[in-house]
């Protein structure tokens, strides 16, 4: 699936995670990182996400997963790893995160 393709908003975590990882790898970490990004790689500790790349990621998530991120939800816990991002999206959709960890 292309990172830029729009989903229908009914994804499961197992469908979301590769999409988010591909976006982060190609659009945010491109050229800055040689090792692959796992679903539990710390995006903040490893400086993959900075202030501006978080803007791009939020716009991507809103556009692709039909959610609206609220300012108070912009906390490290929701964006620390791809798993955390998926859990956050699922919580926005009112569905428990049942996807498997990488």
């Amino acid at each position: 699936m292309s990172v830029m393709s729009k989903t229908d908003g009914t994804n499961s975590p197992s469908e979301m995670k590769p999409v988010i990882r591909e976006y982060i790898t190609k659009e945010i970490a491109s050229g800055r990182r040689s090792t692959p990004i796992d679903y539990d790689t710390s995006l903040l500790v490893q400086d993959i996400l900075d202030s501006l790349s978080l803007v791009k990621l939020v716009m991507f998530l809103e556009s692709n997963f039909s959610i609206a991120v609220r300012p108070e939800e912009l906390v490290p816990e929701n964006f620390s790893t791809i798993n955390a991002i998926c859990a956050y999206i699922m919580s926005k959709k009112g569905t428990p995160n049942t996807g498997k960890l990488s």
Partner: protein
Amino acid sequence: MEARYLKLPSATQSGLTRFFTRADSVLYPMLVVPLTGLLPARLAYRVAIARGDLLYALDRDTRKRVEQSIQTGVGGKEPIPNLPSLTRAWFRYFSCNTVDSMRLLGDGKALSRLVDVRGLDNLDAAIARGKGVVMFCSHLGSRATFALLGARGYPVTMIGRATFGDDANKPTLVRMFHRLYRGRAVSYHARVSGISNYPGLFGAAAKAAIALRGNAIVGIAIDAKPKPQDVSRPVAVTFLNKHVSKAPGAVSIAQLTGAPLIMISIHRKEDWCHQVIEISPPVSVEGETADVFARCLALVEADIRRYPAQYVWGLEGFWRLDPDEAGQDFT
């Protein structure tokens, strides 16, 4: 803000002067400024001017720092003939800014009627585009006056670290002052919650983008030193005669979100009582982020050079007493 820049380690001042400046840093905002709220505007600002002149006369360390900062940043190697009067004006400027904060309380009209706002049509046209507005500025002029846009009903917010009293490095009393007067007043008039980018806090740019999505005006001072969370994208520029790194976040956010980018300039008139807000037409964001940012920074630098006595020279490395050190690239 004021005490942060006036209450400095003092190596050469007498004990009496040190006592006075320390007492002043508490008594002026906590006692004198609230009392000026009872006075007519011109008289209130006269009190502020007198206090500024007194500090100029007594606080030799700060005076020296300001003189040197203006000389370094504006004059470079060319001597500035009116440097003493510019320095004295700087002390007046900071004293008057504190009175602004007091006059912003309530509905803000006590301050609003002293401010001539030019270019509101530019702001209205930008807001009409529906993508929010990124409004860039420097640390020139009064922050309370910026908040006047909120008092006039514009959906304004600011990205900043000191505005809301969250700077843990400041003394408790100063933080209390920020919360009671500046922070409370500015927050009250910000129609959208303020966005703090205090080091360690998360997601300031994304919060700005969300505010822009709601068609808010997001104010960003582009002359500040990059925060730790912004260090991955610095732009090397020459600013006020120094080679420095700056974070081009204002431009990046505008480019990412499609929000118009406009400049706001605030300065005091010669009577110290009245102020002017100038709002520019949108600045083009076409091109590389670094190039657009350099153009924006050049605009604010030109403004600082027009009003060097109204700039927060305590920023960055201008504040150093050693002339050689102050002239160095500090990045």
